[in-house]
């Protein structure tokens, strides 16, 4: 069609580039506790979710916008967070001799990346790039519902569908062929609080953690919103009463 051609011309002036394949259906509502207008993050879920990220996802995915100090906000103590940071070796420097050196992580360090750069990440993942997860729930149309659906969406491909080598079938990924393997299996980790590590549980918890990471201000934002709206409601009443009084003596 000519329209499509005209648009193609507009675009081809920029880079020739691969276009994402067909879209998947909208994900079901997973009824997360933080999803409602006044919802908050469950601290237990956040801490378990961080554990899932740390023990599973962080092998491939970075979260470069987060620092270890941010973990203080999910209810971990100062000591716990310092201990977590110190588990990682961070490259620092140069020192007085002009050398880079390794030292244990501190509160102020960003989360350490699993790969030094995108190329290294691709080589280790069959050419696919495990995206940074810092703002992932804001960066996908279905938000947290989509992430949860994706993580629990590894099913057998329907008859007749051929999965390409190095790819996996996922019911919720656009185009259904995803380079990320199924990484959640029942009982693969032990939650510190004794919660049973089902796939559903791990997926919900890590999704909650990712939603918090994307919008760490959410709870404060909503609290402030309630106060502001109450203030405006009172102010509105007063202003409207004033307006009525001012206009009482004129017909209009």
């Amino acid at each position, binding site marked *: *069609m000519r329209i499509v051609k005209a648009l193609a011309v507009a675009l081809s002036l920029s880079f020739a580039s691969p276009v994402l394949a067909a879209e998947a259906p909208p994900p079901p509502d997973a009824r997360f506790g933080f999803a409602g207008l006044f919802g908050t993050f469950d601290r237990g879920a956040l801490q378990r979710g961080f554990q899932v990220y740390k023990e599973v996802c962080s092998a491939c995915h970075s979260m470069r916008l987060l620092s270890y100090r941010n973990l203080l906000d999910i209810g971990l103590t100062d000591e716990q967070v310092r201990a977590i940071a110190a588990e990682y070796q961070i490259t620092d420097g140069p020192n007085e001799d002009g050398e880079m050196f390794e030292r244990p992580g501190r509160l102020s360090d960003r989360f350490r990346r699993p790969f030094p750069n995108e190329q290294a990440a691709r080589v280790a993942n069959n050419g696919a790039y495990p995206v940074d997860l810092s703002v992932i729930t804001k960066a996908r149309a279905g938000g947290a519902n989509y992430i949860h659906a994706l993580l629990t969406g590894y099913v057998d491909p329907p008859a007749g569908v051929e999965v390409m080598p190095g790819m996996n079938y996922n019911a919720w990924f656009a185009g259904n062929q995803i380079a990320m393997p199924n990484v959640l299996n029942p009982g693969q980790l032990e939650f510190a609080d004794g919660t049973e590590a089902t796939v559903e549980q791990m997926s919900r918890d890590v999704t909650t953690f990712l939603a918090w990471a994307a919008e760490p201000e959410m709870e404060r934002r909503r609290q402030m919103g309630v106060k502001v709206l109450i203030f405006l409601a009172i102010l509105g009443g007063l202003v409207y009463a*004033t307006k009525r009084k001012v206009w009482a003596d004129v017909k209009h």
Partner: protein
Amino acid sequence: MAIGLHDSSFKNPVVRWVDQRLPVFTMIQKEYGTFPTPRNFNYFWNFGALAMINLMIMIATGVFLAMHYTAHVDHAFESVERIMRDVHFGWLIRYAHMNGAHLFFAVVFIHIWRGMYYGSYKAPRELLWILGVIIFLLMMATAFMGYVLPWGQMSFWGATVITNLFSAIPLIGPEIVTYLWGGFSVDNPTLNRFFSLHFLLPFVITGVVFLHVAALHITGSNNPLGIEPKGPQDTLPFHPYYTAKDSVGIVVYLAVFAFLIFFMPNYLGHADNYIPANPLVTPAHIVPEWYFLPFYAILRAVPDKLGGVILMFGAIAVLFVLPWLDTSKVRSMRFRPIARIAFLLWTVNFMVLTWVGAKPAEGHYVLIAQIGTMIYFAYFLVVLPALGRLERPLPLPESIARAVLGPKAQLGGGPVPGAATAQPMEKA
């Protein structure tokens, strides 16, 4: 009273001292205190004041964002997220600026719609209207460049598609695009100049708004009846009547604004813009922000690129000559039974264009966009010029006061005697 000093009526010695030398207090008193304003405004007349407040909010939040933002392709995305995470109330500032832009367009769309429905563009307010259209154009340029700054996927690809439109201009098109980009693709030089211009344009807008309001205060406001006030019985002093009424609108507006910021800050945006820009990956659908959609639909309705660009800019250019396309002397649609229906249909059509602008340009969506484009232009170029001659308007009321107070009322002076007549101000 020395020669050369302004004849001030203020008693407070400090105010008076200033006012004699620089009559700002007299001016405020005249333009916002006693300014004679039609007594029959409805709440549509709030939207000019709302736009003004919105502009101030945009500038205030924008200046603080600029203190922390980094205009570089390697840092822009991250610097915006840092503002949201590490700057005190940075999330509030950024979400206010982001949602403020959405609201600004909503407010100005209603403001323009009001002008079209009540015929505010007609003589003697043509220039006032044209200044408004200039503001609207400047707003679109500002919003487009602002959207590029966070350097997400939609920033990058939106900038690429829109700047590429200029390549449709015969002969010099490609050259112009290279100059816009500062290179051979949307890249760091593009981001830098867009930041500079995005900072500059709101102040240009402020200047044009000043002219817009200055022109308004020469002709005075229109009103829902579309007939000119004939005397003090038809008007009220701006203060306290319209300061009070505008305040009601402002609080409602702030409540809507607050709800967006605090409870659904990303609802009106596109998720793809939280993916850092990547020149190698094209998003499945490149969709502009909602307020550009009607014009985007017109752009894509035409199979020819140059034709599409001309029609898209034509859709706004036609507003400049609207005062002369509408040949009817009657302003308000209340008294134009046929034009009123035509305009309401045009309004629905505008919404259809908004909707179809977000759809992929394929199949029957193209046809809908083409019909929508035809209706859009037909209203201005055929219906309005013809109706001015063919339509029989309803009888106009004798005066605003007669319409408001009823035929039997005694028409004395306004409720505040003498207040509606402006104080004489020395014209230097």
